[in-house]
């Protein structure tokens, strides 16, 4: 697919086999995978992902079990595909930042995305991860001022996660002029891809993201498809998305 794009799945949801298959086939199309480690209080997530996370928390999913799936995925995809963990700060803090970083390194996980750690609280986490060769992914948002965006873009590692909207995951995507300008500023200052997340759910919104940024992350739509149709629907969606984006690419001047 055009761009540098990510796929988000909730760890071991709805079951380990389906999760692994959705991840492995997904990574034929996507460049990186975000593996959500379920946390009881997912404040950045909208209703669809929150439901999936709550299901896994109720099932009592343990990190060790999830790591087994991660190693199957790691073996099933090529080395240039990147794996990231996405979770909330307490899941890292509880295990210990240093230990968490080491665990990522030992399991072939490239970096960590933590939506409730803003830049001004990030130093200790980033240091602990970096000392293990693990990336700390940073966020930029439409609420940031231009100088904040430049600052975060300049020292972003892995990719810069640009939260495209004010809201939670699964909200609908609109990019106002101000936001587009901020994305442009981020791309100018950043040496890594600027990837749009939140609100991307089909070829049209993905294409809108690619017109403005280096890539997109898609999550909520995949969880919906897993809930309503299952793995076949998800795999059809990957294929249709890739085709849709290719056509949109050809149509572009």
């Amino acid at each position, binding site marked *: 697919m055009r761009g540098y794009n990510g796929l988000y799945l909730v760890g071991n949801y709805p079951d380990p086999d389906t999760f692994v298959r959705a991840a492995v086939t997904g990574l034929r199309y996507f460049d990186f995978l975000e593996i959500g480690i379920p*946390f009881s209080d997912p404040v950045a997530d909208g209703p669809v992902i929150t439901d999936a996370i709550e299901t896994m928390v109720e099932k009592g999913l343990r990190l060790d079990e999830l790591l087994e799936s991660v190693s199957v995925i790691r073996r099933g995809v090529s080395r240039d595909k990147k794996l990231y963990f996405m979770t909330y700060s*307490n899941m890292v803090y509880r295990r210990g930042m240093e230990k968490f970083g080491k665990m990522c390194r030992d399991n072939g996980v490239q970096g960590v995305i933590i*939506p409730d750690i803003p830049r001004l609280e990030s130093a200790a986490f980033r240091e602990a991860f970096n000392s293990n060769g693990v990336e700390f992914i940073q966020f930029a*948002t439409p609420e940031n001022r231009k100088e904040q965006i430049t600052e975060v873009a300049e020292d972003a590692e892995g990719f810069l996660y640009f939260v495209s909207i004010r809201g939670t995951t699964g909200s609908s995507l609109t990019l106002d002029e101000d936001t587009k300008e901020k994305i442009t500023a981020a791309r100018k200052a950043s040496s890594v891809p600027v990837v749009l997340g939140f609100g991307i759910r089909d070829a049209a919104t993905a294409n809108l993201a690619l017109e403005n940024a280096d890539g997109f992350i898609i999550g909520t739509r995949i969880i919906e498809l897993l809930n309503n149709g299952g793995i076949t629907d998800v795999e059809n969606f990957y294929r249709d998305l890739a085709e849709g984006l290719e056509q949109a690419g050809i149509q572009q001047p």
Partner: protein
Amino acid sequence: MSIVPDKRGYYGMFGGRFVAETLVNALLELEEAYNAFKQSAGMQRELAVMMERYAGRPTPVYYAERFSRETGIEVYLKREDLLHTGAHKLNNTLGQILLTRFMGKKRVIAETGAGQHGVATATVAALMGMECTVYMGALDVERQAPNVKRMKFLGAEVVPVERGGRVLKDAVNAAMKDWVKSVKGTHYLVGSVIGAHPFPVIVRDFQSVIGSEAKEQMVKLTGAGPDCAVACVGGGSNAAGLFSAYVGDPDTRCIGVEAGGRSFEPGQHSATLHCGEPGILQGCLTYLLQDSEGQVLPVHSVSAGLDYPAVGPEHSYYKNENLVEYRTCNDREALDACVMLTRLEGIIPALESSHALGFLMANAGEFAGKKVLVSLSGRGDKDMPILEKELGL
């Protein structure tokens, strides 16, 4: 005790601003606005006038003579139950609604457990003609029905939250999700000394009137300060307000009382400082009831205002520094105390405040003959459905 928090919003190792990047500038703007609000003689004057004429301050300190005779403890009650809307919550909401107007925002959102903070927020929103949405766990909506009706009557939208244990913590999550969408024109009127900096310090400052008034009143009434200052702790706002006058004072022991619930088994209590370990929830690093993986545990208390799995970061700091003692009172002891105060003094205390009294009754020997100041943080009318059920009235 203005040594905490530091500039980054830390109380020792606790506190901070663990929120989505989207909210960071809103927190920085709030901090700046709050500092300007504190410096503004006009705003401080307006707040003082409203506290007196609208809210009914100062609230009295009352010597509970019959209760004292019965327990063998000299008990003084700081009567926050007499404040407009029936609890200490209005001290904070009145301050924050003026701050909201000062910032030019026109909508407020709030979380509520027992409904007292929700009512206090709906009240001041009506007073200022502002739009108000209150998030409340669906279980709390059921068990605190009178307060839900009051909020609606005051013109607030009440949103029952059907997630998690359907209690206070889940209401905070829902409010945070609203705020991340609405941050431009909306102020999140946090109800306790919890959440990301600067909320814990703003709420403490607005509640510190409890402590500063009581300190003077105790001296006037008894010629000296109390041996102990006791308050219940859920998030910990009335306790932070009371303790602000006494922390570090060698003559007065500060004691915070957490909800011991049914037992100390996981899910059966909300004694965060007693059973929890440091963790990060809803914006701050603080003691947290969690399992070995880091999942937040369900909580229970007979009182809907205390069942919160975390606690204000200032209390976590006080615990670690041994500046305040944190003890517990179980459901039964709280209910007994509620009955006792009602029958001996004609004061129906909120079940939250009943925990402070229940703790004293259960430990009467330890406090025999001592002069104890108790924050009677709210009145118990809202608890009638629970009291009927628990006591078979």
